[in-house]
């Protein structure tokens, strides 16, 4: 239960970090909050020659709005995002998901970039980015590229990040007016990884007719699943219980989740339908609440 030997380097600048990755990327692990990587090191499931610690690089943990996007620095601690008024106001789906990640001690260290780069198939943040069709910004000594979630998430614990690249930012669209969001999940115990989780966002016009809807699931496959076609069924109609129920059915129908110790494939499929309904119902209710109190733009 002790990590294997490694060389440790804690650069003070992004350029320095990218230089190290350009040279040693193949046998380097990047240490952000360490809440997933350090257990893997302690178990000796990973044995990197080099450990590149990002914690001493200033400026990677910003939370800001630019170009209609909420821009989250990769090293922003999950707890900082959870308690950010800007996040709650501009990207409420992200705020909804945060308290469901691990426990507060985990979120105090754990980072947004770390969770995304770790790409756990039951993680909450990948589903949020997939639902909102956010952008993942990768930097290397060669330059920068921005990937959509469909291209970023490759498989179980696997992303498109090249060995010389670093995830530096996640860019999420700011929620339009009259938008409601919800993140719901079922897990064995509070703080455990979700058996299934659903991220949902609903936007309506003045008449209460849905103009945009998004649903993404975690825990039902190797990568987060954006159920775009199913969510589209809500567009053009009011988010009534019947319409929402229909989306739940459409979301679950094509799924073939794995069975494991915690839940059978059938149960996960059942949860996908039920949790989609709950998430959309809560999201739609929040628009109404917002209108009533005038809290939302």
């Amino acid at each position: 239960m002790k990590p294997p030997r490694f060389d440790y380097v804690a650069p003070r600048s992004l350029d320095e970090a990218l230089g190290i990755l350009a040279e040693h990327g193949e046998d380097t692990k990047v240490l952000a909050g360490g809440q997933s990587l350090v257990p893997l090191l302690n178990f000796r499931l990973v044995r990197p020659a080099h450990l590149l610690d990002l914690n001493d690089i200033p400026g990677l943990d910003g939370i800001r709005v630019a170009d209609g996007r909420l821009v989250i620095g990769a090293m922003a601690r999950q707890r900082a995002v959870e308690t950010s008024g800007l996040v709650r106001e501009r990207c409420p789906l992200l705020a909804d998901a945060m308290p469901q990640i691990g426990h507060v001690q985990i979120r105090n260290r754990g980072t947004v970039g770390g969770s995304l780069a770790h790409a756990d198939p039951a993680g909450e943040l990948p589903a949020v980015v997939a639902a909102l069709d956010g952008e993942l910004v990768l930097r290397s000594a060669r330059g920068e590229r921005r990937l959509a979630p469909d291209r970023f998430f490759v498989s179980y614990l696997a992303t498109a990040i090249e060995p010389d690249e670093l995830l530096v930012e996640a860019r999420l669209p700011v929620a339009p007016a009259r938008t409601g969001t919800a993140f719901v999940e079922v897990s064995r115990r509070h703080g455990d990884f979700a058996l299934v989780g659903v991220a949902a966002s609903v936007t309506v016009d003045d008449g209460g007719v849905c103009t945009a809807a998004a649903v993404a699931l975690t825990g039902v496959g190797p990568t987060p699943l954006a159920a775009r076609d199913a969510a589209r069924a809500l567009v053009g109609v009011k988010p009534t219980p019947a319409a929402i129920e229909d989306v739940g059915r459409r979301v679950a129908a094509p799924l073939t989740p794995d069975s494991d110790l915690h839940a059978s494939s059938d149960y996960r499929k059942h949860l996908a339908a039920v949790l989609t309904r709950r998430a959309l119902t809560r999201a739609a209710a929040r628009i109404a609440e917002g209108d009533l109190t005038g809290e939302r733009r």
Partner: protein
Amino acid sequence: MNERSIRVTVNGRTYERTVEVRKTLADFLRDDLDLTGTHLGCEHGVCGACTVIVDGAAVRSCLMFAAQVHEHEIHTVEGLADGERLNPLQEAFHQHHGLQCGFCTPGFLMTLTCFLRECPNPTEAQVREAISGNLCRCTGYKNIVAAALAAARTLGAAARS
């Protein structure tokens, strides 16, 4: 580079040590500083026994390296009491039988120390959520919750007086 020199403040006292870079903060506290009040249960971030406070935030000391706390400030369970006198949270654990075997207690105390600072007047549900990242294998949660609520009352009364 397999060793690092660090300077760290623990419970108000500054220590300078050279550490192997793969040494966790938990092992550093216990083995290098002899602060064995921080307990190690699972060593992979699940049980919460090793919870300490780094720069004001409760964290798992088994999931950080000692090399990462250079120039940072740490509080451990040893810093709670004033000599022989227990602090209000410790006293509440004592009064409400909030510990049985005691192994998990340091982690609970450090988690609750931070929680009661952020949420001085909690509901029982909030306390239960706050301690959800700490496991007690004696399963004595009921009395831990009672102790936390009692401590909040004591601290609240002290703040008002």
